[in-house]
């Protein structure tokens, strides 16, 4: 039991370290990169609004030593003060919260469907030792997700006119604007998950307890259900949390294609007008979401698989 608790401390320490690293990188990048740190931190437009800039300089302590700036930065982070976006004329957190929920609306259901289907397809491929399907999945995985989006947009929206060319969802009837972007993400996630879970399940099938199960005459289906899938479940759960990160990256790119006003389109816009505070805050928020998802998946997979606890 003592061993178990020290393991927990290690895992906790690791996630704490990850979080610390992300936060610190976010602090260091704008200050260490070439150029004026004020411009790096707040964008060029900051100089057009001297009175707001003055206030922000004070808020972030830019005239103080770096250590003090760092503590101020941490404090600001925990109180949700991500700075001011000069191109949107709003605090950053306000801008992001306007966009973030749409991304989550797009990503969360797509991830669930993509992971479930992907794991199903992947385990089946591994169990039946299929080769053609693996190649098919590799092909789907290699297609850049945003290019798949462009092709869908071209055929289904521009040519066939079945779906709108893009835009925001404002009411319930606008759900069809979600169909093409989420289909794109789901297809991509199915391919990733199928390939990864195929690797995991094939690994399990090489274990000696599977050979034993087959040797003692269990039916194929029973071996699959009771031994293969159960033993592969924990790593698959851990994997699907990493997928959540992929889903966000995929969503960023797909939103740009479909001009779907989520985090991705916000990034596209922020890059265009060189609005750094927005990018910085998006990075830290996405990182926090992905790190938390990983921590939760770690806990779940340890809870269901006693082999990981030792």
């Amino acid at each position, binding site marked *: 039991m003592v061993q178990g608790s020290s393991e927990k401390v290690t895992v906790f320490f690791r996630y704490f370290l990850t979080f610390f690293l992300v936060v610190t990188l976010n602090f260091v990048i704008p200050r260490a990169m070439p150029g004026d740190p004020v411009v790096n931190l707040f964008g060029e437009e900051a100089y057009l609004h001297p009175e707001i800039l003055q206030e922000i300089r004070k808020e972030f302590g830019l005239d103080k030593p770096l250590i003090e700036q760092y503590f101020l930065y941490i404090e600001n982070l925990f109180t949700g003060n991500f700075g001011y976006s000069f191109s949107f004329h709003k605090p950053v957190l306000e801008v992001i919260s306007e966009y973030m929920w749409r991304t989550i609306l797009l990503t969360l259901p797509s991830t669930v469907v993509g992971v479930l289907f992907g794991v199903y397809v992947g385990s089946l491929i591994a169990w039946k030792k299929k080769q053609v399907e693996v190649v098919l999945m590799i092909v789907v995985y290699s297609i850049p997700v*945003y290019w798949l989006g462009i092709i869908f947009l071209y055929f289904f929206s521009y040519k066939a006119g079945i779906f709108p060319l893009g835009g925001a969802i404002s009411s319930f009837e606008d759900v069809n604007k979600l169909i093409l972007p989420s289909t794109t993400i789901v297809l991509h996630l199915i391919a990733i998950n199928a390939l990864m879970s195929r690797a995991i399940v094939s690994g399990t099938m090489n274990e000696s307890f599977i050979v034993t199960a087959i040797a003692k005459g269990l039916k194929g289906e029973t071996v699959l259900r009771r031994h293969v899938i159960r033993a592969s479940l924990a790593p698959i759960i851990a994997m699907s949390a990493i997928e959540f990160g992929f889903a966000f990256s995929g969503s960023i790119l797909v939103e740009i294609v479909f001009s779907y006003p989520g985090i991705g389109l916000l990034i596209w816009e922020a*890059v265009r007008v060189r609005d750094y505070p927005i990018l910085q805050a998006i990075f830290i928020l996405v990182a926090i979401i992905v790190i938390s998802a990983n921590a939760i998946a770690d806990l779940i997979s340890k809870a269901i698989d006693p082999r990981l606890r030792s």
Partner: protein
Amino acid sequence: MKVSILTVAFFILLAIFSDQVVELVPLKRGEIFSPPSSDHLLGTNDVGEDVLKELIIATKVSVVISLFSATLSAILGLFIGIFSGYYRSLTAKIFETFTEVFLVIPTLPLLIVFSFHLPPSIFNIILLIALFSWPSMARIVRARVFQLRNSGFVQSAILFGASDFRIILHHIIPNLSEIFFARFSMLVAYSLIVESSLSFIGLADPTNKSWGAMLHYALKRGAILNDAWWCFVPPGVCIALLAVSFLLLSFEFEKVRLTEKFSINK
């Protein structure tokens, strides 16, 4: 297997000889968004540039970036993986923790933030991608090295008084080749896709357009609404083809490993 080697060879040769090949394509500007014809085999883009010519030049950029950043990160990952798998010092433990930590951080948003600040050049992009893609290599190498270190032949080499350097060079590294090449091929495909994504967002060097950058301009300047499929289909097909080829190669290497493992067990 053969098809993917041929495709990879084709693109690498095209990248090396792109300056010469481009001269075979008639360079005169055409009408904007004109469809494929005998003058312009892949049509023209929003400023009347020949798409085929752009595509050949972009091949060089994309291939160079993906190969070099994959090589760099593979070597970095190999060293860190061997070090943290072979030694049991505190430093090795720290390297291991760093590998795990880096694996969790979402790469694309981090790269977006970094490349936003750095002047967009091919060199910077190569460095950035390499800097953030080594952990997958390090982790897989570490696991294998750890396994090898506990195996009979390494233990007996230690018993015979072989130095660490000798063991690593003669007993560990030769056993890493399939893992290394499998992961390396995967890293090339990964770098290719990451680079194209960054360029697609608009963070690329505008003077050295890659396939991703071509897609960026196609979308930004209304190729879809002008029905100009020849602007956005070819670059995407190229990215997918090259990535598929490298991933299939990686898959082949992995299969070699699995069968070898199986025959040893027998």
